């Protein structure tokens, strides 16, 4: 579960972009954050994913957690910000992209096992493990974004789905279930 309590945030020169925003995302729930340009959607997601420290308020993900934590600490309980554009390292092969998901030390230990799991979900990726990510279709690139998060226990998948929903903004594909992903891969 993700919980924000009266979070404010802003940028340089005293520009405040968020004012006391409170919200909750329950495990397994898909929540869309919408708003006009400049409403604060990106700022909110930057705070949630730890890219921008909150100036006030508190945030909890799964357990006690402040809004000021660094990105690497927030990754551990399985929270990632995914842009609606398929975000891959184009000049890297798809398997190298997957390996990036196991970047943090605690994840590296389980890399091989998790890679098998991801290939089980997306068999096409295994066939194309050596292909440059930039030359793949959007659908395959989206599969690559499910990086080999090696430290992530299976129980947290549902909560990550919810956060994908937050991160994906107005993109329906961001809240696909894993089963839907498998179906999608077969297409």
């Amino acid at each position, binding site marked *: 579960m993700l919980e924000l309590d009266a979070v404010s945030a802003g940028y340089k020169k005293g520009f*405040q*972009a*968020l*004012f*006391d*925003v*409170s*919200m909750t995302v329950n495990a397994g*729930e*898909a*929540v*869309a*954050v*919408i*708003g*006009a340009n*400049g*409403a*604060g*959607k990106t*700022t*909110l997601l930057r705070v949630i994913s730890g890219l921008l420290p909150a100036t006030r308020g508190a945030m909890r993900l799964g357990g006690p957690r402040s809004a000021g934590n660094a990105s690497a600490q927030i990754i551990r309980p399985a929270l990632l910000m995914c842009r609606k554009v398929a975000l891959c390292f184009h000049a890297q092969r798809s398997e190298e992209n997957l390996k990036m998901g196991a970047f943090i030390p605690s994840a590296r230990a389980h890399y091989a096992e998790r890679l098998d799991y991801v290939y089980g979900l997306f068999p096409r990726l295994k066939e194309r493990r050596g292909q440059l990510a930039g030359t793949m279709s959007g659908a395959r690139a989206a599969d690559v974004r499910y990086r080999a998060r090696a430290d992530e226990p299976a129980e947290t998948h549902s909560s990550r789905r919810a956060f994908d*929903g937050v991160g994906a903004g*107005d*993109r*329906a594909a961001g*809240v696909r279930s894993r089963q839907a992903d498998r179906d999608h891969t077969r297409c």
Partner: protein
Amino acid sequence: MGVLMRVVDRVVVLDHGEKIFDGKPADAQADKRVIEVYLGSEEAA
């Protein structure tokens, strides 16, 4: 927009850095403020 409203459980609407709505997609689409700031006002009708 229609697709989004079908796939999410809940919608949070921001306006100028403040949360102005938090609830079910169907209620968001019927909310006056949400319509005004996001969906676009059609008051001329």
